[in-house]
Each structure stands twice: as structure tokens, then as C-alpha cells.
């Protein structure tokens, strides 16, 4: 079982890496913003599997933190990355 799960983590991690390659290459910023999304799902899956493999129940908490923080990071990405494009009508009003 442990071998199977370890192999599964390795596989998902490899998929994650491949996905990251394609996303980080771009071309647009919107593509790069997806990176956080990808890590949000792939990273959580990896963490959960890893926690089970090493029987570290606390790894679930790391996954939980990752879920919250990856969401936050993606939002910051959308908000800051495209502030010039007024994403979601959320451009900051600069006090100039």
C-alpha cells in the first residue's frame, strides 16, 4: 500500500510539475495566475497522500493551510497581476 501511494504521489507531483511548466511559459499573465490554482489542487493531493504514507496526521493541517493560502495567493494574483486591466472591477484607487 505504502509503495502504491508513494508512487501515486510521485506521479501526481510529476503531473504538477509538467502543468507548471506549461503554465509558467505563458504566454499571458492569466496563464501564470493558474499556477496557484494548480498548486492548490495538486499540492493538496500530494500533501494528503504524503501524510497518509508517512502516517503523519498533521499533514492534513498543512493541506488545509495550503488550501486557504493558495486561494489567497491566487486572489492576490488576479487582483494585483491585472490591476491595470481592472479585473473584476477591483482596481485600487491610488491616492495620488
Amino acid at each position: 500500500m505504502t509503495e502504491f501511494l508513494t508512487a501515486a504521489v510521485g506521479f501526481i507531483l510529476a503531473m504538477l510539475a509538467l502543468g507548471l511548466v506549461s503554465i509558467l511559459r505563458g504566454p499571458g499573465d492569466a496563464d501564470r495566475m493558474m499556477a496557484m490554482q494548480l498548486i492548490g489542487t495538486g499540492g493538496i493531493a500530494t500533501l494528503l497522500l504524503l501524510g497518509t504514507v508517512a502516517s503523519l496526521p498533521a499533514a492534513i493541517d498543512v493541506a488545509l493551510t495550503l488550501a486557504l493560502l493558495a486561494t489567497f495567493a491566487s486572489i492576490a494574483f488576479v487582483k494585483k497581476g491585472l490591476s491595470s486591466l481592472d479585473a473584476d472591477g477591483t482596481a485600487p484607487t491610488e491616492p495620488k
Partner: protein
Amino acid sequence: MSIATIFEIVLAAVVLGLGIWTIVVRETYSATVGFVAYGLLVALIWVRLDAIDVALTEAAIGGGLGGVLLLGAAAQLRDSEPAVTDAAGNAVRVCAAILSALTAATLAGAVLVLPDPAPTLAPAAVSNAWATSLANPVTNVLMAFRAMDTMLEKVVLLLAIIGVWSLAPDSAWGGHPGPRHQADPHGVLVFLARLLPPIGIVVGIYVLWTGANHPGGAFQGGAILAAMWLLAIMAGLADTPPVSSRRLRLILVAGPGLFLVVGIAGLLFGSAFLSYPPAQAKPLILAIEVAMILTIAATLGLLLAGAPERRTGQ
């Protein structure tokens, strides 16, 4: 070679690949994205190293908040990019590469020849846990055995705030840090900013509370709370408080302040500075941690918000 080792090599390769991307890619914005991904994936290594406390910290502070901090700067500095022409020449690159590689190799060599069995303080930390009746040895180290470092580190955070604030234009002193965000009240961002923070608050407090006996603690919980606060700020649902606010300043010194008070009480009435009477150790430490989580959440949030930029009403 076992499957586990192969997995570890894959993990290290992915993380290092992201590291290389971060360093060599031309655009700063892409480098930042790469670094955030790197920071979040390093948490996996920490889990693999059986250091869950650090994994939580790295995921929350190293990757999450740190990444967002860098990202905000990258977004603001985008226009400055073409102006930079003084890129390093090839000779410099080659020399730098050789020197960095040599340093890294020396370091790797030094790590590989470390003694076996390795010296460790784990048994000492575990066997002295009675003094605090907390089951998480990392929290014990942070809050009891090396409490001085933790307290000083809180002062470092405070100084970082003072340093960031000291960069404000004189006219904006006392005002709100960062821009005032406005968002479409019917947009998805606002929708998420209404839903997520309460959940984050429960998780953050849970991480703090569980830190007494399981991996977790004030830093990690504080970082989650800060993220939630910033989410509300970015969605325009809340504003950063003015830096002249007395209440804000009280929150910002609550952690180190209470730490100091408890420490001095130990000096006056107990056995030593920063010692806890065993019977009250747990409640005292938890009280300090509660003060610290508020301080950390406020500090991290304000560090991300930046220097004061505008007066109230601007």
C-alpha cells in the same frame, strides 16, 4: 533505489526546477509566480522531513504571504522593468556561477560529512516537557527553552513595521497604509471575501490552539488570520487602520509586551526571567500565544499593506 527515494528525487527536482526558473527567467513577474509556487512546494519537503510545524510555517509565511508580498511589488514595478539595462555581463555571470557552485558544493560536502549518529536535543526537549505540560516539543522550545529568541523575534517584527512606516511621506504620517481598495460589490471576489474569512478564522484559531500539543502555533495561525484580513481589505470590505490608531499599536505590541511582562514576573516572583511556574505554565504560555497571534496577524497584514499612504477620507 526504493520508490520513496525516487519520489524524493522527483520532489527535489521539481522544487529545484522552480528555483532555477525563479532565478533565470527574464520577467520579474514570472519569477515571482515561480517563487510562490516554489514556496508552497517546499512545504512538501518539510512534511517529508517530518517537520510539520515548519511545513505549516513555510506554506503560510514563506510561500503564501511572502509570495503575495513579492507579487504586489512586482505588479507595481512592472513599468520600471525596461529601464533596467545594467544587466550583468557574461564574464560576471560565469564567475558568479563558478563561485556559487563552489560554495554550494562546499556546503553539500560539509553536510554529507556531518557525524553519524547525529547529535540531537530531541530527547532533552521531550524529557523536559513536564515543565510546561505542552505536548508539542517545538512549541516548548519556542516558548520555554528558547523563549528569549521568540520574544526578540517579535521585536524584530515590530521593528520591521517601524521601518516600513518610516518610509512614508511626511504628509501621510498617521494615515492608512496601502491603497484603498474598491471592488464591484456584486463581483466574485467580494463573494469569496465574504465567505472565506470566517472559515479562515476558525482554522487560524484551531492552528493556534492545536499548537500546544500538535504541530501548529501562533505564527502559522497568525499568518492565516492575516491572509483573511487582507482578503477582506483587497475586496474593499475593510480598510487598513490608520497607523496613529492607539488600539492598533496596542495590538502590535501585545505579543512581545505580554511576553515581557510574564518574563519580568518570572524574574521578580519566580525562579528566573522567562520561567513559568509549572502549575501555571500552560495557561501563561497560551495567554502569550493568544496575544502573539493578534500581534502576528496585525503585523503580517500591515507589512503586506506597506507604508502609510493616505489620510483618512482620501
